[in-house]
């Protein structure tokens, strides 16, 4: 068993710009319904929270290490628990890629400050559990 780590940093202003220019097309393309719900307050959507979730998706991709393969953003979901911590849940191709690589026990932490949001993802890599290794395919 060995850990695999991914980290990402996202400009909150870039996310704000995406919302302003592309609105729901941007939101619904990238984020799941629950993620959008978690980012809403009575004052509206919070760009910092969205930026943290985008960073989490990118950090997860760095753990998954797809080889020029399309992994839809919505197949990587940040789930917020009542007490405030977050976890990452995979579905579809992201989940399949994790299984193929022998990756499990994903752990996530997110933060935002001073115009940037960051995320770090750690997963356990067990080569004995992997279903196949796309990199080694011929």
């Amino acid at each position, binding site marked *: 068993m060995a850990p695999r780590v991914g980290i990402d940093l*996202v400009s909150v202003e870039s996310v704000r710009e995406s919302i302003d220019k592309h609105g729901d097309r*941007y939101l619904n393309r990238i984020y799941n319904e629950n993620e959008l719900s978690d980012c809403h307050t009575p004052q509206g959507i919070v760009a910092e929270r969205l930026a943290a979730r985008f960073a989490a998706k990118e950090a997860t991709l760095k753990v998954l290490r797809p080889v020029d393969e*399309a992994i839809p953003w919505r197949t990587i979901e940040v789930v917020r628990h009542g007490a405030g911590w977050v976890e990452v849940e995979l579905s579809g191709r992201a989940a399949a890629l994790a299984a193929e690589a022998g990756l499990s026990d994903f752990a996530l932490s997110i933060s935002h400050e001073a115009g940037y949001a960051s995320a770090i993802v750690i997963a356990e890599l067990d080569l004995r559990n992997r279903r196949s290794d796309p990199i080694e395919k011929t």
Partner: protein
Amino acid sequence: MIEEIRKIIAEHGRLSVDVAGLAPNADLYHAGMTSHASVNVMLALEDHFDIEFPDRMLKRSVFESISAIESALNELRAEQPVS
């Protein structure tokens, strides 16, 4: 089409260099485009060219250069002719 792509990248790509000076096959990620900025580029391309990038094309190589974007747009325009 190349010049239209350049204009969209200049507006949405948040590059650290002047897009006008980039070769068509220059790596946009090396030129400073982040993954999030590539989303904005993708959405702006969809608006401008009236196409939609399917999930299978949402990968790094499709947006890594002006030439790669042009190839993807040509492929999509053949698949999704404008009515």
